[in-house]
């Protein structure tokens, strides 16, 4: 565990952010079909403008570029720098899948608090609808999954969900409530891909993809990008009246619970990551005004509620049942709709969830703004481990005061 003097608590702030519209890139509807690079540039410009910066404020500073699933650029960081015309003094290229946004923030915080740079532009974009499905898997995943009939993440998360349901009595109505409430939130989010509400019946009647995973448990893949700018805390108010500070961070990748012999597939590294983040922040889980967990599947939201400590392990279903998880409820969860209802821009790193967390702490949540929002928890998860669950687990605790 990190020593207190290595803590990132209050050292850095997000001073600007931007999110492009997301799209299914339907040519028949006249929607543009842009490249990865255009979304990257667009998001960077939005964040720069939002922070009130110009390029000179970002030049000779840090740059974080989340690895996209399309194009597979071998040198994605410097190619992004070339597109943006930035000379950089610190390059971060997270390959953390859905944890990349939170990891960008943390690695930017380390670089800034070490005095290497004063600012880091963190950008993530993807355009799977433009390029087609070009996900590449490493040898051991490719060779021991696809020939055996594994249909990507829905198959692997179906195995996790079935186990969770039988081990703890989790019901479809529990994951269904997450789907319905997140959709309610999406309808209030102008940037969300889905514009109309769903009911529990819609959820229960939606078609099975990999039973027990239904269509409405899954994300809608979109093209899009988002970015944010991190500075040292001392200069944050020079750029914005609404800085959002990093209060805690924790990461736990490739965890084996309780051991590497037949591990329990229902336990996530979020458990250790959230404990580390809470310790750094010197806060309790009950201090959180929101929870913005990375959501590739509804069961992942439910399991993270447990492993982050909002309820006991196995009681996520009951917790969701009795808790108002809407933006004005007891524990607001994925108040922008999450990826499941706002859309997932390819492998764009979990920025959807982090951006909503930033927005809420700036009191910019419009019709879905959480009252008196001061502190919240955002997670990032990614990569599915064979016979377990996600491999990448990161947790950030954010606040609008230090």
């Amino acid at each position, binding site marked *: 565990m990190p020593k207190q003097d290595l803590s990132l608590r209050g050292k850095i702030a997000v001073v600007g952010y931007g999110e492009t519209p997301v799209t299914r890139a339907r040519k028949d509807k006249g929607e543009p079909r842009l490249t990865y690079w255009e979304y990257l540039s667009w998001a960077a410009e939005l964040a720069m403008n939002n922070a009130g910066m110009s390029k000179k404020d970002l030049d000779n500073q840090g740059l974080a570029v989340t690895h996209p699933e399309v194009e597979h650029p071998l040198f994605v960081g410097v190619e992004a720098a070339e597109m943006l015309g930035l000379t950089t003094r610190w390059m971060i290229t997270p390959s953390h899948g859905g944890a990349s946004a939170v990891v960008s923030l943390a690695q930017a915080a380390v670089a800034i608090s070490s005095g290497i740079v004063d600012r880091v532009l963190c950008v993530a974009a993807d355009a799977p609808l433009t390029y087609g499905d070009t996900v590449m898997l490493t040898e051991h995943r490719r*060779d021991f999954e696809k*020939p055996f009939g594994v249909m990507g993440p829905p198959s692997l998360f179906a195995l996790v969900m079935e186990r969770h349901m039988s081990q703890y009595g989790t019901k479809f109505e529990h994951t269904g409530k997450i789907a319905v409430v997140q959709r309610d939130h999406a309808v209030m989010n102008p940037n969300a891909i889905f514009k109309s509400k769903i009911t529990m019946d819609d959820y229960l009647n939606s078609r099975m993809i*990999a039973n027990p995973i239904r269509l409405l448990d899954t994300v809608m893949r979109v093209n899009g990008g988002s970015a944010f700018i991190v500075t040292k805390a001392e200069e944050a108010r020079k750029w914005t009246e609404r800085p959002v500070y990093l209060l805690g961070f924790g990461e736990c990748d490739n965890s084996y619970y309780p051991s590497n012999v037949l591990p329990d597939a229902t336990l996530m590294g979020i458990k250790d990551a959230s404990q580390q983040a809470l310790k750094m922040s010197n806060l309790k889980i009950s201090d959180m005004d929101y929870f913005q967990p990375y959501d590739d599947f509804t069961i992942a939201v439910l399991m993270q509620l447990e492993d982050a400590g909002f309820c006991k392990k196995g009681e996520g279903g009951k917790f969701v049942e009795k808790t108002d998880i809407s933006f004005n409820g007891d524990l607001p969860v994925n108040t922008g709709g999450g990826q499941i209802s706002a859309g997932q821009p390819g492998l764009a790193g979990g920025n959807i969830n982090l951006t909503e967390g930033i927005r809420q702490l700036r009191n910019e949540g419009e019709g879905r703004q959480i009252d008196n929002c001061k502190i919240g928890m955002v997670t990032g998860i990614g990569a599915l481990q064979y016979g377990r669950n996600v491999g990448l687990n990161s947790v950030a605790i954010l606040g609008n005061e230090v």
Partner: protein
Amino acid sequence: MSKFGVSAENPSNAKKPLPYVASFSSPFWEGTKMGELRIQSCKSCGHKQFPPKSSCESCMKRDFDWVKSTGSGRIYSFASIKEVVMNSPAFQKDLPYFLAAIDLEEQVRIIAQIVECDPNQIREGMQVKAFFEDIGGISIVKFRPALPIA
């Protein structure tokens, strides 16, 4: 379009994906061809692991024995696959099928299809037995119920 991505080709012409036989996993594939389910076992610490890896996940040493599994195990979890996503359209004709995580007697977990199983009977803990199927010069492992269903 990546050679590993989903192809837009006509399902009737599509082929199921074949594994690339990596040097560190080749004893496994030699085994399946002979009707053996081989598990990597660390020479230093005895840890068993699946799928094959380039290091022992318990001690990080690199020398392995290969032990022959009994092929017997129990279902840890299962899913009924209803749609082809992120894989070859050649699987279309097999739908729906059961995919399961199976805990073998050797204390390793393997993901494979369960066949010849009554959909009303499949459950966690069910005993299953491995068999092998040639998919084009390479054999993969599938499982079927070990005991006759009452």
